[in-house]
């Protein structure tokens, strides 16, 4: 069995895996990080989105071996202690989730979106950027609202950190 080494949520991990192991399986089954979900088998739903070296990736589309040496971040890494990430808080404040199954992928996608497109996101941009994420519960209305609010809140946090 091949051996893989990578960093997940700041911790170095090394494991022997079957070569067909997907990154999402590795996260869920080997590391028991079950916040990353599997909603499809055709890379269509985005429930499995994580960050690999700072970019949003559908963790069902790559083998864990392809993440050799990478820095992987999952939904479990966003909150610092009891303090939620501004995007998490925005989802809660704006009722951006119902059953919660798509939510980790939505939040990870949203954080990446802000990193790429900035803090001032209009409705159209957000909807276009969500093309890889499915939600069956919310009709997207409140997800779009959450992401716009979360993006703004992230700007405030960044400014506050810079001022410190």
């Amino acid at each position: 069995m091949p051996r893989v080494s990578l960093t997940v949520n700041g911790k170095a991990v090394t494991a022997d895996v079957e070569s067909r192991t997907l990154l999402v399986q590795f996260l869920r089954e080997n590391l028991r990080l079950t916040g990353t979900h599997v909603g499809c088998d055709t890379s269509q739903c985005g429930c499995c989105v994580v960050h690999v070296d700072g970019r949003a990736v559908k963790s069902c589309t790559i083998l864990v071996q392809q993440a050799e040496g990478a820095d992987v971040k999952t939904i479990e890494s966003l909150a610092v202690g009891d303090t939620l990430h501004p995007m998490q808080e925005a989802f809660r404040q704006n009722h951006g989730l119902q059953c919660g199954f798509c939510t980790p992928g939505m939040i990870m996608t949203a954080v990446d979106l802000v990193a790429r497109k900035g803090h001032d996101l209009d409705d159209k941009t957000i909807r276009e950027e969500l093309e890889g994420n499915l939600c069956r519960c919310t009709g997207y209305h409140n997800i779009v609202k959450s992401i716009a609010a979360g993006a703004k809140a992230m700007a405030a946090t960044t400014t506050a950190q810079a001022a410190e």
Partner: protein
Amino acid sequence: MSATGIGAAVRRKEDYRFITGKGQYTDDISRPGQTHIHFLRSPHAHAKITSIDTASAKTMPGVLAVLTGADLAGDKIGNLICGWMIHSKDGTPMKMAPHPAIAHGKACYAGDPVAVVIAETLGQARDAAEKIEVDYEVLPAVVDPAKTQEAGAPQIHEVAPQNTIFQWHLGEAAAVDAAFASAKHVTKLDIVNNRLVPNAMEPRAAIGEYDSGTQNFTLWNTTQNPHVARLVIAAFVGMAPEHKLRVIAPDVGGGFGSKIFIYPEEVVCLWASKKVGRPVKWVCERAEAFLADAHGRDHVTHAELAFGEGGKMTALRAKTIANLGAYMSTFSSSIPTYLYATLLSGQYDLPAIYCEVDAVYTNTVPVDAYRGAGRPEATFVVERLVEVAARELHMDPVELRRKNFVKSFPHQTPVIMNYDVGDYDASMRKAMEIADVNGFAARRREAEKRGKLRGLGYSTYIEACGIAPSQAVGSLGAGVGLWESAEVRVNPTGSVEVLTGSHSHGQGHETTFAQLVSERLGIPIENVSIVHGDTDKVQFGMGTYGSRSGAVGMSAIVKALEKVEAKAKKVASHLMEAAESDIVFKDGQFTVAGTDKSAAWADVALHAYIAHKFTGAQLEPGLKEGAFYDPTNFTFPAGCHICEVEIDPETGSTTIVGWTAVDDFGTIINPMIVEGQVHGGIAQGVGQALMENAVYDKDGQLMSGSFMDYSMPRAENLPPLKIDTTVTPCPGNPLGIKGCGEAGAIAAPAAVINAITDAIRTENLAMPATAPAVWAAVRAAAPALAAE
């Protein structure tokens, strides 16, 4: 209104675990020593299974067992059942064919399980399944509900000649015929209500576990109603006595009806766990979900609406063929009958209605309830008829509706339902204002200048929720009662646990139910927790579907709270040495009328348990009460949705440019959650109208079997939604709640199709109205335009 009480937009208590990735869905649970199961499914829609050779599969690495339908039958595991008896018009009972959890002798749809492999890892189970040799004798298949009753069509089950399950009817045929004979105008429509795949984002999953020491079974399962699952698996499938089977529904990632039913996979996981002596886990893959989850809708209908003078509706008749798939799923018989034909009166004062429904078998996966279940189909029939009639009669669709609305209540329809309360015109007026209907003509002209076609469509829907009075549904064939239970447990420190038979899979009960308790007991919402989804904790419950958790589930909590309050007053009277009749309870404080004596809620709770102030002869210690609530009627949420579309005639592509919904849900506990429910329902209704379609080819192969070819609504397909409400409190339950979970899915399809047909000026358009379909309709309606 307090900040956390009834009517407040309280942020959800359950969200923290979901946004931090700490939810516990069935697939997130790992049992010590668990094994994995793979279902080998029939690739043929209809085939005799002549032999199954499992010998080489059994020798594959990691394999613990390979089991077939013969093994299941050998162990006397019973069939899956449909729990609602429907009789045909000739009095004969529905023809329920045997439905074994693993096909035995014959496979009836592509995806019917034929064997299972249990192995140490899922990969090993899959690899071994490839070594199973099944010999099939392929039989001709039938998938089209309109063709399955034809002479010469393949016969699927011996018990059901012509593949006909029942031929049912409702209403007065003679009265309807008379009204049609004297009608001034008749509008006729042929409607196909397209077949849908529910596709909750969390695929179904199950873990079965058998404890040989206690002989107890445990099932973790993605279910909307764990107690009903336990009852059916115990009493009908015969897996274990009810008290030896525990069913746990942990966090469930959406249901929309598809997780109500008792499916083969959970039965097999339980059975296999005893056979291999270890827990057996199954997680459905999406491709498998398309094949194996119960689908929704799939009706073929001819409907006619008769009018007298001046646009007054006089009668409606409909003939529907409902596809129930290859086997009868748990509640499948009730959907195209008592949840469909009973709503054909819509919001209208219709003197006569007659509906005939043939339910049929086809070689497709079973069809059962999907968000709205029967009511979207009924609404689509009624609201399309009304809109088309208005165009034929050259009347304003608003005026035609208004003229025919039910205006006095209670109102008895010709199809069982007794509408208790409503103000349909109020919702329509408000919606028209928000949608700026007055400005539509100008918007249409402006669009025309850009070469675009603009249309406006209405849907004034009604639904029956809060199912339902047990005696009434019993007389209609239901095998169960449809009450709900609640138990309120007060702890010695005054915090409260509420055990409910309702089940939350996204609806936010942990918040809304706690709001009710917080308001009634005057305690902080943080001090209340809601317990659900475990048959070992909650004694019994009927689960969540049909927008029943507010109207029925919360009513049960109200009843239990009343008993708790009565008992607490007795405790308070001993504590404060006053007459029980003088105790007043308000805002979490007990006071003695006319004195300054008072005791806080927590003091009284503590004294209920320490029992120092009363003797056992005077009062039982403790503070815990339960209640069962059986509703007295259905509830009738209703409202008006207005959809505005813009169509590019060159491509046929439709953009929804505006959506307004004004709904009357009665009392609202949490407006934020209610809006969310409406948003989600609209998205599913828009999906049905514009994109979603489960298509089988003539051999019974599912052509739309993944998210690549079954088009799900994405963020870009939906506009921002304008949501508002009007309120007529429901008189039938203590809180005045009607229910909101399905409204959007019920209202939306007709609103979309009415808008598109308004834009393209032809009624000849089926769902889903994809770009090619709209393009073809435009071309067919205006050949001259096409020639240009």
